[in-house]
């Protein structure tokens, strides 16, 4: 789970795995993934008990950002 200077740097990284291109996100999309209540609300005093309520928005955001890619689909099979 790393940041790179460009998409080209990701693909030429020694540990890049061909076939996992779906795991590449732009910086803006990565920020969007981390901007639902699942991550925004961590400092709320009731965060752990309310965590299940944050799942739908997170799942939806992942699907939006990835264009419904199975790579980013958290829903049960």
């Amino acid at each position, binding site marked *: 789970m790393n940041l790179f*200077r460009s998409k080209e740097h990701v693909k030429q990284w020694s540990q890049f795995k061909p076939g996992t291109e779906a795991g*590449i996100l732009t910086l803006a999309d990565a920020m969007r993934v981390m901007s639902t209540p699942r991550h925004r609300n961590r400092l709320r005093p009731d965060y752990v008990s309310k965590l299940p309520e944050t799942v739908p928005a997170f799942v939806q955001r992942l699907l939006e950002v990835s264009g419904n890619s199975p790579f980013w689909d958290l829903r049960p099979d």
Partner: protein
Amino acid sequence: MAADHLDRTYHYILSTFVERGQAPHFTEIAAKFGIPVEEGKRRLHELMAARLPNWLFPDTDLIASFAPFNNLPTQYRISVQGEQRWFAQCGLESLATTWMFPGKRVTVNAPCLDCGEPLCVDILDGEIKQADPGDIHFYVDLPIKKWYGNLPFA
């Protein structure tokens, strides 16, 4: 553990990270809640078993990582208003540190793993204010369903 205990322990650990850049020890958890030291340790272990992206250093009672922060230095250095005191758990969580510091400019500094050259991201309340270089990308090689089974190596 009662849900209230999980909430309170979680909030205390995360707030301590925000304040000082390091995790508390379980003795501090005990002191915070006025409970015996062994009960503080038990609450820590029960929270860490709650399937959150947090883990202990193996075979210890020491917090290694507590998203979005890391208690061991990583390549993701986090500065707030210019002061570098924190480390992020990973590249993705480095972006989520913005939510820990509302109203403050958070800067992520890290080397690119491919070339070692620096990259820098400035974020304010979830909005990317500046990125250098301008084409930074994130990469993970595991589908998201497999992340929890592969922490901390996802």
